[in-house]
């Protein structure tokens, strides 16, 4: 995270009906585009306030966009630990947008919580000094409070505010009790142990592949290649999860000047390309040797490192994003036609990451039973193309349109659901 410091700003004041000055307005550096910001730190926003008709009306003026006047009653709330939650004057049910304003001298994080359950309805992280940010929420009848977390200070809970209404009719938006790093450590350790055991099986499988390549029995080598590659795929090495070691093992020829003939092309797909393109023995042997070595290096490295617990939720989501992007387009098929087998192994990998997260998800993610049903459905859709007696799978290109649509839809559906798991399991500071 980085913060940009604010600069002195003109102050606009107004009068409340009681004649009290309204808190000042700050303006930060102009907002730049945020559409492509991805996971970058939050940006700044320019705001102004005016007082009209007795209610504070906040006018957002960002980035050349047309100014919009939010519905009356959208309040401007102080996010600084010293005045946490001050300014929430018009409690009302329904969808509304608060403007959070950090009047303190240090960065702040602020959340709106349900005081009964501790569930968070919305948050703003990394709110720089002087900065303001909007926070859209939907509130039902109930009691809520803002919690402000300054840098290196204890969290401060602002005044509890009761939102009127019939609790059965006005329901709040989705909320959850935040997950902390502390919560994620046991699942991460469990996952790490599981992955370690799986890597031992992987080492045995790549050794067996290497041996088969050395004997020159191409049929046996192909069969062992599939076994070994699926053992790797079950680890769920999506999006750089295993760093350079993973890249050496499962890369494609993309980005290599000489493509499949490039010396930098290593790993499972390198061996696959050789086995299914009748490559001569010496080159193939070297590739299989290298693969076996790299797998051992992966296992050794894994034993030495501690996985970041915060990665767990993201991994639960991104394994199948990889499947959608690579396996289900055929992009990673170098001749074996085993994309569907790999996709099926990725489902197992996703389940393996979810397993230790379940205790956290059970109370936070109401969609968990539906997610399990959809995982089962995707598994069935893929298993329909396995030929157990031959140990082979239908190549992707052999599927008819309806079969392919069914698989793509099942996996696509899972990526949407798992995105929520990742969001919920993002590690947050807890009071």
């Amino acid at each position: 995270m980085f913060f940009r410091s604010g600069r002195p700003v003109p102050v606009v004041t107004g009068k409340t009906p009681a004649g009290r000055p309204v808190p000042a307005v700050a303006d930060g550096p102009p907002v730049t585009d945020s559409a492509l910001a991805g996971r970058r730190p939050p940006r700044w926003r320019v705001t102004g306030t005016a007082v009209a008709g007795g209610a504070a009306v906040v006018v957002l003026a960002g980035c050349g966009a047309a100014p919009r006047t939010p519905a009356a009653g959208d309040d401007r709330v102080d996010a600084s630990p010293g005045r946490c939650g001050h300014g929430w004057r018009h409690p009302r049910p329904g969808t509304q947008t608060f403007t959070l304003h950090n009047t303190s001298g240090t960065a702040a994080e602020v959340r709106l919580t349900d005081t009964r359950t501790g569930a968070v309805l919305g948050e703003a992280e990394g709110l720089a000094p002087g900065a303001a940010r909007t926070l859209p929420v939907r509130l039902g009848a109930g009691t809520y409070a803002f919690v402000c977390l300054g840098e290196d200070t204890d969290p401060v809970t602002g005044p509890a505010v009761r939102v009127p209404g019939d609790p059965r009719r006005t329901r709040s938006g989705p909320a959850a009790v935040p997950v902390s790093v502390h919560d994620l450590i046991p699942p991460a350790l469990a996952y790490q142990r599981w992955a370690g055991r799986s890597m031992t099986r992987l080492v045995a499988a790549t050794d067996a592949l290497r041996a088969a390549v050395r004997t020159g029995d191409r049929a046996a080598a192909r069969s062992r290649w599939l076994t070994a590659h699926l053992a790797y795929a079950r680890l769920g090495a999506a999006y750089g999860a295993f760093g350079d070691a993973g890249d050496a093992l499962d890369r494609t020829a993309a980005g290599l000047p000489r493509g499949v003939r490039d010396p930098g092309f290593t790993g499972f797909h390198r061996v696959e390309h050789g086995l299914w393109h009748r490559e001569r023995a010496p080159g193939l042997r070297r590739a299989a040797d290298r693969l076996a070595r790299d797998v051992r290096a992966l296992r050794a490295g894994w034993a030495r490192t501690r996985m970041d617990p915060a990665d767990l939720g993201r991994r639960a989501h991104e394994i199948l994003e990889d499947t959608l992007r690579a396996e289900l387009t055929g992009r990673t098929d170098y001749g074996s036609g085993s994309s569907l087998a790999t996709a099926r192994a990725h489902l197992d990998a996703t389940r393996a990451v979810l397993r230790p997260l379940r205790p956290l998800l059970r109370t936070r993610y109401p969609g968990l039973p539906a997610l399990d049903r959809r995982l089962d459905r995707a598994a069935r859709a893929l298993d329909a193309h396995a030929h157990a007696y031959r140990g082979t799978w239908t190549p992707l290109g052999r599927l008819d349109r309806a079969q392919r649509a069914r698989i793509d839809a099942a996996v696509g559906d899972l990526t949407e659901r798992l995105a929520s798991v990742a969001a919920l399991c993002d590690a947050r500071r807890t009071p």
Partner: protein
Amino acid sequence: MRPVLRRGLLRGALAAGAVTALAAPAPAPAPAPAPADGPRFHGPHQATILAPPARATAFTAFDVTAAGRRELADLLRTLTDRARFLTTGGTPAPTGITAPPPDSGILGPYVPADGGLGVTLSAGASLFDGRYGLADHAPRLLRTMPVFPDDDLDPAWCHGDLALQLCADSPDTVLHALRDLTRHTRGGMQIRWRLDGHTAPPRPSGTPRNLFGFKDGTSGPDPRDARLMDRLVWTGTDSGEPRWAAGGSYQVVRLIRMLTEFWDRIPLSEQERVIGRNRDTGAPLDGARESDPPRYAHDPEGEAIPLDSHIRLAHPRTPGSEAHRLLRRSYNYDRGVDGNGTLDQGLLFCCYQRDPVRQFTAVQKRLAGEPLTDYVTPFGGGYFFAFPGVRDRADWYGRALLTGTGRTGGST
């Protein structure tokens, strides 16, 4: 060459006045049938059907992957809810820390109410196969699009269980809606094919031009004439349709490649004789202004307007041909180049009618062998049935189909 359906149908189908008014971005003098803030969402018909073509469109066909009738009902309910929100605008429902942001954000923090988005949902014949128990409830005349003699159809660009057309004044509004709708229906349906289209502004005035440079859509039934629309566009129980299908319309979509570079290499006089109109003004070759009706009775030999010209075949203006008129809602498309560097451009032809055999097929047959076939090739499309409108907040696309014809689908 043999008969092919042409963009020329258009010429038979669009009301010139309406097209002019609606396609123009600036204030236009002619009255517009749709309110300035775009078609309303609720009503007996899908309002987008009569609305003039917008500047931008995406036409997307889907394979439905919902497992069973209940999930199909959920899918249609979700499509309705999202379409209602996207067309009427508002703040996306906050998801807090429980999910990624609820909206792609490409229209900014609020979905504008004045984005002019129109959503049209229709069903293909394959939705009424055995999968969802709907086989006995198909619209009476809905069939799978046949292969016409001059077609060169690519199966990857044909048919679909559902078709979704999104129209708006700008492409970002269309893409925003497409991403929202697909995101919320992931698992229930899968994109089969998609073609984007656009409408040109009037150049310099009158009906917008197609990519052959001709004003396209000058003549056509007036969508403001409700009784005419009842005769030509809307289906009803009086035409033998199942009850749920009253207020819908048969939609024919044809993806037509136009060999624009070949066209540019033929003399203007030949272009004009192929079409039957003056390229500069859009006037019929026996007239002076775009709005002049051609007088075929005074030209029985086709000396002014050739007998095989497109406008003459598409809409001969004989008493019998009136019943064949259809409502055209077509767009130009432009999608890069083909394998040998030829520009890949053409027409996303779309038309609505009460009876596809009496209207579309009849016109198609008249166009058989017209000279225009040398310059165009249909490569995809499909026959669909546009659902009746969503009547109110409790209604959803196809509700009467799914709840009135057997077991009711509930929410899972």
